[in-house]
């Protein structure tokens, strides 16, 4: 039996209401005890001064594998996740081919077992080929291990298809995730529509393009009773709509991406069209960013997810209109959010852990979010006061596309334990693989 003893850390487990300096004993892939001064013949990790948390889950990741391995692949993407403090990620199906049938879900899971160093939960396509025409075999893929259905990258424009997906998946308790964008309002658009886009001469996406679709999807969730999850919420109107539906008791959840909390559209002008600022949904104006912070405080936002979208330099070192959308976010998420939301904001560490661990686990209906005795030993360890600087060159991800180069973080991932395996420690990958 393999034993791992994590000694002397501040164990923070909001699900179990635990916040105390305790030891955590892991036997094989399970937590066997959490208590004071545990001793065992075991590999020991000294966690004094560190936060020991249930494993963080980034529920919105583009792994690019299969098909675009030059941007990211299973190995590099999961290493980036481990380095970023995540024990698990959910990956989007807009690969080549699109993950839209059981065989592809199974192939992805096999690849995870062979090459992944954190847990990977596949999100399957909602429609065949992500074409937005007819439902994919969603229940079959659910059975094979898919955790949610999404045409991410290809927002569902057809209301009837969205209705059918929500309705059909209700008995399978599988969330539908829809990138909320009315494409008829965003043709050729590359940033947020407002004074900055006007002055730069770039086509803008109005906030309303997102809000209209959020409103539609909420109404369809109400109509069907299906489970809706709204990814990367970025506008004031969208969070207001979500808050209103939540207060009426509807089954809706949402996530926000760190870049939407940290940057405004002004950065596009300040950097004179740096394509690392190009992302969809776009970086919004200040009133929207402030509304997102307010929504986090009020508990309207359920999760933080990076929308990790790694790209090769060839896809970014081009004219703004031609550049790919997306930010490589796995390795900056926790450090930047800890600084902004905990050290400089009003969130507690427990609040942050809910957003990164407990809530994503619940939304995806996967094991995790707790460190109670007997649970799977997926553990994230944070150095709460550690300060440093974002350096894209140090990323494990192949995608170095970040607008946060040189930014200061405070509070950073220190250790990642997946199923009892230490895959990252002292901020460095150990080369270990998870046990599956």
């Amino acid at each position: 039996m393999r034993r791992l003893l994590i000694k002397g850390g501040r164990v923070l487990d909001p699900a179990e209401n635990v916040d105390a300096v305790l030891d955590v004993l892991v036997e094989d892939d399970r937590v066997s005890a959490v208590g004071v001064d545990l001793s065992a013949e075991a590999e020991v990790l000294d966690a004094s001064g560190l936060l020991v948390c249930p494993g963080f889950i980034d529920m919105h990741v583009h792994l690019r594998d299969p098909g675009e391995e030059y941007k990211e692949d299973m190995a590099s993407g999961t290493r980036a996740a481990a380095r970023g403090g995540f024990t698990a990620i959910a990956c989007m199906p807009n690969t080549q081919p699109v993950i839209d049938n059981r065989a592809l879900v199974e192939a992805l899971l096999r690849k995870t077992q062979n090459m992944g160093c954190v847990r990977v939960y596949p999100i399957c396509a909602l429609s065949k080929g992500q074409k937005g025409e007819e439902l994919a075999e969603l229940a079959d893929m659910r059975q094979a291990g898919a955790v949610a259905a999404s045409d991410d990258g290809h927002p569902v424009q057809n209301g009837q298809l969205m209705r059918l997906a929500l309705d059909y998946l209700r008995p399978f308790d599988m969330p539908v995730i829809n990138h909320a964008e009315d494409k008829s309002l965003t043709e050729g658009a590359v940033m947020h529509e407002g004074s900055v886009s006007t002055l730069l001469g770039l086509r803008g996406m109005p906030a309303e393009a997102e809000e209209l679709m959020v409103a539609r999807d909420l109404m369809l969730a109400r109509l069907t009773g299906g489970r809706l999850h709204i990814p990367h919420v970025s506008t004031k109107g969208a969070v207001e709509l979500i808050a209103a539906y939540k207060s009426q008791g509807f089954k809706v959840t949402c996530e926000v991406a760190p870049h939407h909390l940290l940057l405004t559209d002004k950065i596009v002008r300040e950097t004179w069209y740096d394509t690392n600022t190009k992302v969809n949904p776009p970086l919004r104006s200040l009133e929207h960013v402030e509304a997102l912070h307010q929504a986090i405080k009020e508990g309207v936002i359920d999760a933080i997810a990076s929308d990790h979208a790694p790209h090769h330099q060839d896809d970014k070192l081009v004219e703004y209109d031609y550049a790919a959308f997306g930010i490589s976010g796995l390795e900056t998420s926790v450090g930047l959010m800890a600084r902004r939301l905990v050290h400089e904001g009003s969130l507690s560490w427990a609040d942050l852990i809910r957003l990164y661990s407990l809530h994503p686990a619940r939304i995806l209906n996967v094991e995790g979010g707790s460190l109670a005795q007997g649970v799977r030993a997926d553990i994230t360890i944070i150095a709460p006061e550690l300060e440093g600087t974002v350096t894209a060159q140090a990323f494990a991800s192949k995608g170095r596309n970040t607008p946060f180069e040189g930014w200061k973080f405070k509070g950073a991932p220190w250790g990642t334990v997946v199923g009892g395996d230490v895959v990252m420690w002292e901020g460095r990958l150990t080369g270990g693989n998870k046990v599956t």
Partner: protein
Amino acid sequence: MKLASRHVLDLETMPAEDMKNILDTAESMKEILGRSIKKVPTLRGKSLCTLFYEPSTRTRASFELAAKYMSADSISIATATSSIKKGETLLDTARTIEAMGVDMIIMRHPVSGSSHFLSRHVKGAVINAGDGMHAHPTQGLLDMFTMRQHLGRLEGLKVTIVGDALHSRVARSNMWGLIKMGAQVCMAAPSTLLPLDLGDLDVKVYDRLEPALEGADVVNVLRLQLERQKRGLFPSAREYSQFYGVNQERLKLASPDVLVMHPGPMNRGVEISTEVADAPMSTIDEQVTNGVAVRMALLYLLLGGADE
């Protein structure tokens, strides 16, 4: 006196004293254009390349003649818009040109921000000859030069820009330049063609033409891109002309000495009537001449003539 930047990318980032310097220098360049032998040896041994990713008649010819009149060597590369994405990247093309020893790249490109992007990756100078909807700084400068020659000043002038300012780099460069030089800028167009949000910039925006023309010292008419109609931004050229076309009747609202300008090419009978375009108050041909003078001034100031 050198310019603050080795590049000319837009008028937003150009200091007002640089604009004034360029306009002053252009006065003496215009004198050269009036000579029977229009050639000075000032830029002998310098070379430049015009790199145009969009069609152009006057801007490109203007730059190339400006270079020849100053004795610089120029080459031109035209890239069909349709092959941009398939073929060589902009940076590779630019590096290739630089590797041949070119001192300056003058680029026109359909994507906003391309000149800023290019300027970060080349050793030589970059002049923006129009990037998407963003900027056309030499057009802004030549328009201001023309106004100043006729009216003696820029400060305090009421300049009304008529037409599709939403999509117009000419409008943006006029706006930034004129604001910095102390003019009052107005814009008039159908509301679907007006800039969405100019933030806290001091620009008066009108969705009807008549109030914008009242007392105007200069009316700068923009070309109406007829393809905008296909995207539904206005119902028809006929209706546009009926409500927003600049004609003699409407110009009675403007100052009696009003100048009428147009960057070309014109749609006669749509945004501007032929009677107005060919009237004495029109500076349209003169703008073209001034364009050469202003570009000669820029080449002189950027390619090291100024430090001799």
